[in-house]
């Protein structure tokens, strides 16, 4: 038994700034509904510190908020399951653009609202025109503010009803002055950039136009319920950050003219996965964004970007191509056809729109604000004053331990909320309890600005081996922290790149087959020549011991065995250490631990090889009597030499990567042969030294 559930009705109260009265109007209307007997519940009301709203809200039944566990107890979000269980007719959800706390089931409130609508619950909500995703470039241009919490345009367009809550900017500014609008601090923070009359005027204009467009779209939908797209816009996707702006602009134009929209990436490689990681990630990010704002995506493979785009356009009934602004200065002489021209000349019957970069005083437009540090940060940190004692600081930390996730560090803020120092919990515990925090804190802390890109944040976290970074505004005031868990995936990607670097895989600066023969020979011949010169020392060493060799020729039989054993054990140790380095298991400062381990390993391995050697000599002697009467002494010499040589080999082999690395040389490309050479020479010296000690008076 299945019956089609009616989808909930979405009503949006649209404003253009805080304080125009969206929430008030929404509650007012909801009250009227309630008075008429409609089942209305209040699921969320943005706390604005306004008594009139708080009073009004008390008239409604409330669905308790959910406490999101992973981020400290004071972050409360919509309890969608609770609302669905209660299943009211109408649900009031203030602030549609809100971003849920990390760890919530859905990232954004508009997604929560979709769930309610799907379940047949009517939703009334509020948003500002600047929250529309496609307007964020324009808002940035007007105000210099990057709107972090956006709502995709389709969510707004699918609303069944849009009520514009209007008040003139003049009246709004009056309200602000009289303090009717929410808490003064927030007003102050926003007022500098947003609450300027021309900006408010422009925002209001946008809101009115948006409302008119919504009305028209609804009227159109009534006339022609089945939307047929006569026009189709193709967006050229590149790794360049301007693609975000291009997508937003295309979305806006497509919405105006009711066109379909597709984002196409021309991949120069045959496989998308063969692109450099950074480029691949950028494209994936753009595609993700495109899908979010309901633009289809496609990848075509070709080395000729312009040709492939036009070809795709022709095959897919595209009427207009959107390409980005030209990057970089024009060529000075013989300019020839740049990308724009290439598209233009091939486009024949297509319209091509070159979308300009919306810049502000030469700056770049906002890209994906949600990817910036400000978008990732959360306020769960412990702030302490520099003037309190360590004892007091510890007790404060203890108080916060329950509801603040990040208690590894305490952030020391001055009276103006500026970050002056950082102190870790461990440092606090170790410090003299009567000292002031000021005297134990670190002032050389790392921090990021709120606009910092998340990849930069990730790098900084990885480089400094930190668990969290403070996010500061331009005045150095602390806004929140970004923790490594917030960035887990990004850090991983960054780290894998690091692995490649440590492992020396980039030694050839390109894939093996693509490096030219000349480059390869140059790179390898240098090392081989150095090693060859080193290997010559073996001749010198042999010459030095020629007297001994001539007296006990039997010793010469074992030279290859001894030196290759040393070389083998050295190469083995080198390889192991390089791999461990590449995987990040060991770092430069771990050299002492490695020496201790390799010392033991060297002795053990040497003993094993020595025993095998001794057994072999005894066995051969018993069978064929090859080594004469002193075979036992010779066996002892070989055994002892092997222990020494293998021990030296492993030590040299394991330490060489450290030495090369600290000299900023690439350990992978040179370590193994280098160890072999080194051990060959010293192996000879060890061998003959041992022999001269043991065999003195017997053979020598």
């Amino acid at each position, binding site marked *: 038994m299945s019956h089609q559930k009616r989808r909930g009705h979405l009503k949006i109260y649209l404003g253009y700034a805080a304080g125009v009265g969206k929430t008030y109007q929404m509650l007012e209307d909801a009250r009227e509904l309630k008075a008429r007997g409609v089942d209305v519940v209040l699921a969320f009301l943005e706390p604005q510190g306004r008594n009139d709203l708080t009073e009004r809200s008390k008239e409604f039944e409330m669905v308790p908020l959910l406490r999101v566990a992973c981020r400290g107890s004071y972050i409360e979000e919509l309890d969608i399951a609770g609302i669905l269980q209660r299943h009211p007719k109408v649900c009031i959800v203030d602030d549609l653009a809100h971003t849920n706390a990390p760890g919530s089931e859905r990232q954004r409130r508009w997604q929560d609202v979709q769930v309610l609508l799907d379940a047949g619950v009517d939703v009334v909500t509020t948003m500002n025109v600047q929250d529309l995703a496609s307007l964020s470039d324009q808002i940035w241009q007007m105000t210099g503010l990057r709107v972090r919490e956006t709502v995709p345009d389709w969510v707004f367009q699918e609303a069944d009803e849009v009520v*514009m809550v209007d008040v003139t900017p003049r009246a709004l500014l009056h309200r602000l002055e009289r303090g009717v609008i929410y808490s003064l601090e927030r007003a102050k923070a926003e007022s500098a950039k947003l609450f300027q*009359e021309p900006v408010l*005027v422009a925002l209001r204009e946008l809101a*009115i136009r948006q409302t008119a467009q919504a009305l028209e779209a609804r009227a159109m939908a009534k006339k022609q319920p089945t939307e047929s797209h006569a026009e189709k816009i193709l967006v050229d996707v590149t790794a360049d950050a301007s693609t975000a702006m291009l997508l937003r602009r295309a979305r806006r134009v497509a919405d*105006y003219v009711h066109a379909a929209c597709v984002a196409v990436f021309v991949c120069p490689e045959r496989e998308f996965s063969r692109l450099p990681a950074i480029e691949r990630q950028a494209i994936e990010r753009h595609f993700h964004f495109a899908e979010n704002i309901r633009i289809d995506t496609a990848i075509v493979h070709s080395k000729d970007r312009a040709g492939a785009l036009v070809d795709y356009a022709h095959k897919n009934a595209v009427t207009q191509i959107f390409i980005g602004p030209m990057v970089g200065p024009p060529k000075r002489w013989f300019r020839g*056809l740049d990308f*724009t021209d290439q598209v233009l000349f091939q486009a024949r019957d297509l*319209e091509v*729109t070159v979308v300009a970069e919306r810049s502000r005083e030469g700056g770049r437009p906002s890209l994906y604000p949600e990817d910036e540090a400000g978008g990732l940060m959360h306020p769960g940190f412990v702030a302490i004053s520099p003037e309190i004692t360590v004892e007091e600081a510890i007790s404060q930390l203890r108080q916060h331990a329950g509801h603040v996730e990040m208690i590894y560090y305490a952030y020391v803020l001055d009276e103006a909320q500026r970050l002056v120092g950082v102190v870790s919990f461990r440092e606090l515990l170790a410090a003299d309890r009567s000292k002031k925090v000021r005297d134990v804190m670190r002032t050389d802390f790392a921090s990021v600005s709120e606009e910092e890109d998340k990849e930069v944040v990730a790098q900084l976290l990885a480089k400094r081996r930190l668990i969290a970074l403070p996010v500061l505004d331009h005045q150095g005031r602390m806004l929140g922290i970004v923790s490594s868990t917030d960035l887990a995936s990004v850090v991983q990607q960054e780290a894998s790149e690091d692995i490649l670097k440590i492992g020396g895989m980039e030694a050839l600066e390109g894939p093996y087959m693509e490096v030219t023969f000349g480059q390869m020979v140059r790179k390898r011949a240098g090392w081989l020549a150095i090693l060859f010169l080193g290997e010559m020392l073996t001749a010198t060493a042999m010459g030095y011991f020629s007297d001994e060799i001539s007296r006990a020729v039997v010793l010469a039989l074992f030279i290859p065995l001894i030196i290759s054993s040393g070389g083998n054990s050295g190469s083995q140790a080198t390889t192991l250490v390089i791999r461990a380095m590449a995987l990040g298991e060991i770092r430069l400062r771990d050299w002492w631990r490695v020496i201790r381990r390799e010392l033991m390993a060297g002795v053990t391995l040497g003993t094993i090889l020595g025993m095998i050697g001794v057994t072999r000599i005894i066995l051969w002697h018993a069978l064929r009597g090859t080594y004469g009467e002193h075979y036992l002494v010779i066996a002892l010499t070989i055994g002892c030499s092997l222990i020494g040589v293998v021990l030296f080999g492993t030590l040299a082999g394991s330490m060489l990567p450290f030495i090369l690395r600290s000299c900023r040389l690439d350990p992978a490309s040179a370590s193994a042969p280098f160890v072999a050479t080194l051990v060959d020479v010293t192996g000879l010296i060890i061998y003959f030294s041992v022999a001269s000690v043991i065999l003195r008076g017997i053979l020598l």
Partner: protein
Amino acid sequence: MSETEKTSDSTRGRLKVFLGYASGVGKSFRMFDEGRRRRDRGQDVVVGALQAKVPAELEQLLGSLEIIPTLNIKGIPVIDVQAILGRRPQVCLIDGLAFDNPPGSRNAHRWQDVEELLSAGITIVASVNLQYIEDQREAAEKLTGKRVTQTIPREFLNTADEIVIVDAPTEAATERRSALREMALVLSADVIDAGLQRYMHSHGIEQTWGTHERFLLCLTPRANFERMMATARRNAARFHCDVLAAYVKQPGLSDADRKLLENGLAKAREAGAQVEVLEGEDPVGAIVRYARSHGVTQIFVGHSAKKDLGTRIFGSIVSRLVRAARGIDVRVFPH
């Protein structure tokens, strides 16, 4: 004091308009209510004009306001400009802007009376219905079926410093009503934009904020002007935007080209486009300068698929335009 106030002639009063899109939505009430609040805040407020019939719910509001009665000339109410100027209030309320004064009056239209009061530094709060705006009349008449004869010019409305749409409760949203509401919304957005443009101009801001789409069609002899115009109009209807057209005087045009161009110009004018003739040695520079100073968001330009030697070496003129038009989209039409 706000920025906008400083920019406009400091002796001029401010004009605030309550725009209704259907009768009975309560614009008079809103206007007089604002008058009362202003008076409560200590401003010197008078009523300069009332509607002929005062509804009951307004009586009480009006009771607390000083009224300077209209003169009744041949049965037509005329604002007593002389009396108001003599009284010199800070704020004057005018209920209904679209009235023609009888012949022989100080001014032919009421909006001209208001203009005089504004020039004298008196702030005006007025109400008007969508249908009484000259360029909206025809469309509004189609929807309402009501004919009006007296209108105010759009240019006058555009000088409004503030405009407020008076919305009726959304409950009875008929199709006709939402069409009127949409018209009112677009109109007020345009009025706001006019004010914003004035502000930008007076502050020497050349940047386009793009609150309002504005297309500039570049005429060249061979441009597929019909297609450009058709697209521009279709889009303009959807975007509710302005369409401008410009042509840069070029020396040494061949006869054939000149003919084509004149043909295009004629068609453009026929289609109702204002064609600006620009002078300048560098056509790209001239176009971009004009676009910037007019808040253009998209430049429409034609492009030939033929590659001549110059293009092969120096790139096309369109790509030069793209580079120069930073901040403005360039839409290229094949021809």
